[in-house]
C-alpha cells in the first residue's frame, strides 16, 4: 500500500494505483490557501509535475503536493496544455495539418507543424478565437496508453507521418506510448496536462517562425507557432509590455536608428561595419580597457 507524505508532514496510505485526483481531493488543505478557491489542476509527485490522472507509482513512500492555478510550478503544465489546444484549433481551421513537436518554453510554448497552405500572422486571431472556444468548453484531457505497434497505427490513422516517424525512430525504446484525447483531438503525448483547461487564464499567439523537422536543414520545412500563456490577464499584459520594451531596445533597431553600425550583404553576413558614432563608442570602450586596465598590468602585442 503506497504511503503518501504531504507538505505539512502528515502521511496517509492509499490503495495501489489510486489516481492522484483522489489523493489530492483527500489531501490536507494547503497552507497558505491558494489565490482563488479552486480545485487542483496538477500535482507534484516527488517534486515532478504530473497530471491528476496519473496513478500512484508502486513505491513505498512518495510525496504529493497539489498544484493550483496561479502556482508558478504549474505553469509548464498549463502551457503544454495550451500548446495542445492551439494544435486542436489549427486542425479545426486548416486542412492537412501534420504535427511535429510542441514543447513548453520559458514563457509559453510552441508547436511545429505544416498545413496544406502556410499559416500567416493574419490567421493568428482566428486561431486564438478558436482556442478561447475550446478553453471555455473546459473538456478534460483523457490519457490513453497503448503498445508501440498500436501507437503507430493510431498516428497513421490520424494522418500524422511525422509522429509515426518519431515513434519508429526516436521512441524506439518505449514499449508503450501515451496519447491524450480532448474531444475530437488526439495527440501522441507524454503529458502531463492540466485537469481543467479552464485554468488557462490568458494567452496570446505571438509569432510564426520557420523550423526544420528534427532541426536538420535537409528535412521538411515546418512552421513554428509560438504562444505565451499565463494564469491571469495582468501577468500576460506585463509580459507583453516587457516584450514590447525589449523590441524597442533591440540593438539592431537602435543601432540603425542611432547610426551606430550597419551590415552589408556585399561585405558579407555576420560582419559588422562600425559607423562613425559606433566607432566612437567602441573606441571609448577600448581606451577605457587599455588605459585603466591593460597598461598598468600587461604588455601589448599586435598579431596578424
Amino acid at each position, binding site marked *: 500500500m503506497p504511503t503518501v507524505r504531504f507538505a505539512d508532514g502528515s502521511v496517509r496510505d492509499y490503495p495501489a494505483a489510486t489516481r492522484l485526483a483522489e489523493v489530492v481531493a483527500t489531501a490536507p488543505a494547503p497552507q497558505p490557501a491558494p489565490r482563488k478557491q479552486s480545485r487542483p489542476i496538477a500535482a507534484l509527485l516527488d517534486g515532478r509535475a504530473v497530471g491528476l490522472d496519473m496513478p500512484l507509482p508502486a513505491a513505498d513512500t512518495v510525496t504529493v503536493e497539489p498544484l493550483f492555478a496561479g502556482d508558478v510550478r504549474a505553469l509548464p503544465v498549463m502551457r503544454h496544455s495550451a500548446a495542445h489546444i492551439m494544435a486542436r484549433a489549427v486542425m479545426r481551421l486548416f486542412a492537412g495539418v501534420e504535427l511535429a513537436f510542441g514543447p513548453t518554453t520559458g514563457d509559453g510554448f510552441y508547436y511545429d507543424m505544416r498545413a496544406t497552405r502556410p499559416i500567416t500572422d493574419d490567421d493568428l486571431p482566428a486561431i486564438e478565437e478558436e482556442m478561447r472556444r475550446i478553453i471555455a468548453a473546459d473538456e478534460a484531457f483523457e490519457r490513453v496508453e497503448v503498445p508501440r505497434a498500436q501507437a503507430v497505427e493510431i498516428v497513421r490513422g490520424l494522418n500524422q507521418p511525422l509522429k509515426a516517424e518519431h515513434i519508429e525512430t526516436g521512441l524506439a525504446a518505449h514499449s508503450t506510448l501515451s496519447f491524450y484525447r480532448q474531444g475530437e483531438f488526439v495527440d501522441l503525448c507524454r503529458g502531463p496536462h492540466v485537469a481543467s483547461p479552464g485554468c488557462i487564464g490568458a494567452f496570446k499567439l505571438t509569432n510564426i517562425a520557420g523550423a526544420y523537422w528534427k532541426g536538420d536543414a535537409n528535412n521538411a520545412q515546418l512552421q513554428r507557432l509560438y504562444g505565451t500563456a499565463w494564469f491571469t490577464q495582468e501577468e500576460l499584459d506585463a509580459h507583453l509590455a516587457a516584450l514590447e520594451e525589449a523590441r524597442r531596445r533591440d540593438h539592431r533597431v537602435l543601432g540603425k536608428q542611432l547610426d551606430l553600425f550597419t551590415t552589408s550583404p556585399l561585405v558579407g553576413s555576420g560582419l559588422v561595419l562600425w559607423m562613425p558614432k559606433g566607432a566612437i*563608442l567602441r573606441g571609448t570602450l577600448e581606451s577605457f580597457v587599455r588605459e585603466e586596465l591593460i597598461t598598468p598590468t600587461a604588455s601589448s602585442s599586435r598579431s596578424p
Partner: protein
Amino acid sequence: MSDDEQYLLKPMNCPHHTMIYKARPHSYKDLPLRLAEFGTVYRYEQSGELGGMTRVRGFTQDDAHIFCTPEQVEQEVEGCIDFTLKVLSSLAFDDFRVRLGFRDPTSDKYVGPPERWAEAEAAIERVARRMNLPGCEPEPGEAAFYGPKIDFVIHDSLGREWQLGTVQLDYNLPSAERFDCEYIGADNAKHRPVMIHRAPLGSLERFVGVLIEHFAGAFPLWLAPEQVRVIPVSEKSEAYAKQVQGRLAAAGLRTGIDLAAEKLGAKIRTAQLELIPMMVVCGPRDEAAGTVSLRDRVDGDLGAMSLEAAVERLRDENARRAVRHKPKPLAVATAPAAAGDDY
C-alpha cells in the same frame, strides 16, 4: 596561394601570443608575463544563426594571455576577475552571474595533472566566494578539456543569457605535445608555465550589442558619441555658443551644436530624441554674465552657472565615467521550462 604555404584567417589569438612568448627564453622572474591585444578573429557560424552584433563571423576580442607559475594562478585569477568587475560596474551591469566551469571528477578526458586541476579549481572557488560573486556554485563537467574557467553571464533585454567575460585556465597549449612552453625556475630546472586566457568584455561586437540594449541607446555621458550639445536660444547667441563649444571641446568633451532655425523647445526635443546626455543652453543674458544653463536629458533643467563651473562639472563627470541614470532592467519573466521529455 602560389607557394606551398597556406594562410588562414585566425579564429583565436592564443597561438600568436604563445609564439611571442617563445621568441625569447624566460626565467621565473619574468612571470607572470601578460600579453594583451584587441585581436580580430574569424569563425564560420551557420548563416541561419547570424544576427546583429551578437552572432557574427568576425569579431574583436579584448584578449590577453597570461603565462604564470602554478603558484601564481590564484592571484592572477583574482586580478582578472577584478578587472572584469571594474568593467561591469562602470557600465552599471549589476545583474550578472558567474559560471564556474569545473571538471567532471569521474572523467579522464582532461589534460594536465589532476592535482593541478584540484588546486586551480579550489583557487577559483576561493576567489569567487571571497569576492562574493553571484552564482558561484561550481558546475562539474562544464570545463573544457584543457582547464577550468569562470564565465561572466548577463541577461540581454529579451532575457537571453550571453556570456561576456571569461577567465580560462589552459594546461594544454603550453604542454609538450602542443606548443612546449617553458621557463627556468629558481632551481635552474625547466618548468612548464600555466596559461590563462582572459577577456573581460569577450567580443567587442557582442558587448556593444548588449550595451546598446542595456542602456536602450541612452548611454551615460562618458560613452555617448555626442556627449554635450550646445544650443543657442536664437541666432543672436550663435557666436557665444561656438565659444562655449570650443571650451567644452578643449576640456576633452565630444560636442555638437544646433544652429538650425528652430525654436528652443524643438531643439531640446531633438536632442532628447537623439539621446544626447547633456545640453548646454545659452542666450544673450548668459553671454553678458559668462554663464550657461545645463539641461540633463532625464532630469531636465539643472540651472544656470558660470561657464567655468559647467565645463568643470562635465569634464569631471566624463573623467569619473559616472553613470548617473542607471538603466531600468527589463523584467522578462521566465518560469522554469518543463524538464526535457522525448515526446
